[in-house]
């Protein structure tokens, strides 16, 4: 294994984030509670610097540490996105934690730790690194989900997440071991090379593919490996939910694409069949069950399941497309989809986090009743996010769906596009139900227990970023499209 100091620069953002995480964890017990705000600013600063470094690394493709990590445009794309989301999370949490009276400085440490895991995931080129990244992310998230220790639902979410997460990582690891057995390496290029000459029907390979698909399927919350999602999203503190729904999903997709495209590209006929099945199941179940939810976090959880389904369309399309260009379009569509999805989902969760009922989350859909009269601006923002999630132009959600469906049609999966769009129409119902509740129901009389909205400058920044992203990229997606196009992995 060769090592050069230059490699350290390539993983500088990860190093920065981990250092900051350790600093935060170390400083937390020392600082007086009034000064713990500083931890948030420290985290933000680190993230800003990291993003700068990542941006400077765009456009170069360099393996590091003997190939267990590769810093290419693809990795930078995801790392940028992840850092951005983490920054938003810190800002959101700053206010949210105060409202929840959760004075944990280590919270930010966990955010940063999880983030470093995610960044490792997307830049890893070795199954080992990917596994480590995944676990780093997951372990942090298990803890974060249960941070509201006084709240039984938070604990339960943490427990469920942990049990199922560990279960799935066992499956993933078993898959990795089988793949190692089938190809003799855990390095993705080596795996790809080994597969190139093999029969696709090799049971070992097939079993490995299936188990890897299941392992990632869990992280991506794909039906039927999605069942933890609603419970955990609902039980976890809302800021954590937002972080999970956006960042962890994005990171998992990043790693997932890397493994299946770069490592298992030769097996695309197999895995695209698997994902086609999962994709259809996800679209149907995610959208239909979301229809009948009464808790908005739960509804958004199902919605995020459904969105994973839409993103999977791009993966399936990439797997089924004829030439390499077609495959690239599908992958690029997925990347674009997640970049855009980040804005709207995070925005939606932010509004949910802002809504307080008494001392608690106002997370029932009913709590939004008449929001438009009391907080017109917040209601308008929520409207934009919902419209975007429903995929209606001129918002980012439409652009995301457009590219995904385009790749599907290009790959000859017109029927899948039709099916997905029909379910997109169905999904409009539950998104618009929020709009309906906010705008069309008369607000109930204001009492102490009635929902109110928390505002703070930090939250304003979060919302401004989210809504600007949704609208700007909805109207002019060109920069992001180009970015995704440059960063895309090629499927050989």
């Amino acid at each position, binding site marked *: 294994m060769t090592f050069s100091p230059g490699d350290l620069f390539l993983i500088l953002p990860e190093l920065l984030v981990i250092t900051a995480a350790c600093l935060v964890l170390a400083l937390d017990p020392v600082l007086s509670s009034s000064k713990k705000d500083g931890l948030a600013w420290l985290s933000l600063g680190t993230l800003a610097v990291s993003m700068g470094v990542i941006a400077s690394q765009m456009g170069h493709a360099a393996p590091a540490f003997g190939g267990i990590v590769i810093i290419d445009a693809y990795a930078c794309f995801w790392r940028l996105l992840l850092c951005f989301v983490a920054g938003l999370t810190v800002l959101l949490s700053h206010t949210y934690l105060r409202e929840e009276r959760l004075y944990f400085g280590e919270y930010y440490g966990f955010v940063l730790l999880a983030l470093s895991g995610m960044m490792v995931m997307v830049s890893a080129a070795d199954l080992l690194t990917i596994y480590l990244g995944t676990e780093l992310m997951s372990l942090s998230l298990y803890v974060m989900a249960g941070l509201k220790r006084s709240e039984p639902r938070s604990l339960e979410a943490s427990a*469920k997440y942990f049990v*199922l997460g560990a*279960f799935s990582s066992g499956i993933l690891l078993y898959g990795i071991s089988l793949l190692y057995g089938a190809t003799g390496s855990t390095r993705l290029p080596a795996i790809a090379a080994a597969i190139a000459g093999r029969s696709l029907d090799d049971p070992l390979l097939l079993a490995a593919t299936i188990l890897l698909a299941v392992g990632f399927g869990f992280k991506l919350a794909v039906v039927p490996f999605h*069942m933890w999602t609603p419970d955990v999203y609902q039980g976890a503190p809302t800021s954590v939910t937002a972080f999970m729904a956006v960042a962890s999903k994005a990171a998992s997709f990043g790693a997932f694409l890397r493994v299946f495209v770069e490592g298992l590209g030769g097996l695309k006929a197999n895995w695209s069949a698997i994902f086609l099945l999962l994709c259809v199941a996800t679209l149907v179940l995610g959208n*239909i*069950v*979301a229809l009948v939810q009464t808790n908005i976090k739960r509804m958004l959880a199902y919605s995020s399941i459904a969105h994973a389904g839409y993103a999977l369309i791009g993966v399936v399309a990439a797997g089924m497309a004829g030439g390499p260009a077609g495959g690239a379009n599908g992958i690029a569509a997925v990347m674009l989809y997640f970049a855009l999805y980040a804005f709207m989902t995070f925005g939606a969760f932010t509004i949910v986090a802002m809504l307080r009922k008494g001392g608690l989350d106002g997370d029932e859909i009913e709590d939004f009743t008449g929001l438009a009269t009391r907080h017109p601006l917040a209601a308008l923002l929520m409207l934009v996010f919902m419209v975007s999630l429903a995929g209606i132009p001129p918002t980012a959600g439409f652009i995301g769906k457009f590219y995904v469906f385009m790749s599907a049609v290009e790959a000859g999966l017109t029927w899948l596009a039709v099916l997905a769009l029909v379910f997109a129409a169905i999904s409009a119902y539950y998104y618009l139900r929020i709009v309906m509740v906010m705008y069309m129901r008369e607000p109930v009389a204001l009492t102490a227990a009635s929902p109110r909205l928390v505002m703070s400058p930090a939250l304003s920044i979060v919302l401004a970023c989210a809504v600007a992203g949704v609208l700007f990229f909805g109207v002019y997606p060109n920069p992001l499209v180009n970015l995704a196009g440059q960063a895309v992995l090629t499927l050989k």
Partner: protein
Amino acid sequence: MLYTLIPFLPLAAFLVLGLGGSRIKDRAHLVAVPAVLLSCLLSIGAFIEVASGSVISVPLYAWLTSGTLDVRIGLYIDRLTAVMLLLVTIVSSLVHVYTIGYMHGEPGYARFFSYIALFTFSMLMLVLADNLLQLFIFWEAVGLCSYLLIGHWYERASACAAATKAFLVNRVGDFGFLLGLLLVWYSFGSLNYHDIFPAAHEAANQTINLLRPLGGIWEVSLFTLIGLLLFAGAIGKSAQVPLHIWLPDAMEGPTPISALIHAATMVTAGVFMVARLAPLYNLSPVAMQVIALVGAATMVAGATIALTQTDIKRVVAYSTVSQLGYMVMACGLGAYASGMYHLLTHGAFKALLFLGCGSVIVALHHEQDIRRMGGLKDKLPVTYWTFVVGSLALAGFPLTAGFFSKDDLLVAAWMSGPLGQVLALLGLLTALMTAFYSFRLVFVTFWGPSHVDPHHVEHIHEPSWTITVPLIILAALSILTGYLGIPSFLEPVFSTGGEHSGEHGAAGLGIMIAATVMGLAGIAGAYYVYVLNPHLPDRFAQQWESLYQGSLNKWYVDEAYDRAFVKPTLTAATELWKRVDIEVIDGAVNGVARGVAWGGWLLRLVQSGQTQHYALAMAGGIVVIVTMFMFF
């Protein structure tokens, strides 16, 4: 061209009154009357010019151009048009003047004038049309005016219902007209008379298979189809059986309107149309026979109903229906000139009768039931005498205009062939009834003891000059128009080389005598029944009760239509709405939504909250995927 002003002067009057009516109010006649009088003078000028043999054609503008559908609005004055122009403008002028007195002080005074001005414009444009579509446009426009004027007293429910009914019944006829018009365009590529008429002969043998869409064969002559479809419009507009039901109800409108629209001009548009399209009708013997039979049926039906009506205006209205039947029958038998001749004389004396009725009604404070009249001849001498003149003309009393035109018509009918002879006999029978009911009206209204409401008796007096002068002029016209030689004047228009109503021969003389005898007999009969033996009518009514009731109730046609069309349509509409729209279609839509939601509720139950179920689902997922690979 100066003659462009003929229709557009009334239009200008309408626009002024329509837009500024609220300011003009009681001075509305100052706008309308001069306009119509002027256009009347211009019409006379046009008549004179046309009489010298020329044809006037004034293109106005291209209304609609789309591919081969090219419609240009234009004016066309030949002898037929000129005659109609005279009729329309003269009667309209008189009615305008009459209205000043009749409607004086009414709140809708200006509105009324604006409507009749609009009507005059539309009617003039109708007769001046040089193409079928223009004819149709103004055909509908006069219908609109009729609608508005029938509903003039809009607060009266019966007036509104009558207006709606008139419009709707006419629409049914226009349905045919429109299709006929399209068929003409389809067959000739043009709607202009100039293009159609010359092309008609070449297409005489064309047929159309009506059952083609259903796969059958039923070849119908093109011209029969065109003729019958267009005639459907005439059936509506000219109140022919079976669409005659609207005309009597239209009497809900103010009386001047009944005189102008529902007697003299608009209702004769159907006859005019058939005459105008004579070159087309001549090519279809079948259509002609149908027209003749419809006309005859209308003639008889109208007369039989008129015998028993008790509303003064309804008697006259049914008489109009019956007389229109005469005209249509004549056209159907090819005697267009006779039909038009009768149209003109009828226009004069029927307008007279209606205006007379109006005079009576005004004098009696809007009493229309003849059973509450009587003995008015001394109190309303001018009205009485002019009414008698009108009735004589209607009855075909010798030397009145009606005498000449009806004789001419019946003779022409007799000469036209076997069908014509049968119908001529029917016409004679109808003439008997006509004389009877018209003088029944005279005797019951003006003679005998007074049944007038005692409150009003004192106040009965002859109305103002604006009412009496038109009556006198029309009375004069009711006699004079008989001497104008209209048939020979019009003959060139219909010169198909066929019969000449001038050569009567022996049979003609016989018909003439028979008609005269019938007329006199009718008058005598009325005198016998209503003056000498006033108890007879009741005895007759009891003796032939079913006949009497049938006639009194207009042969139950309205009721039949109500049961056959109106009620089923409304019921069907409501049922369709409730069953199909709400239950089936909307039910399906909502059902899908409910189904999806129900699926959601069901699938939601899988999410049990038990961690191990979730793990089981994951394991199940693996099994499914493995199965997929094992079997596919």
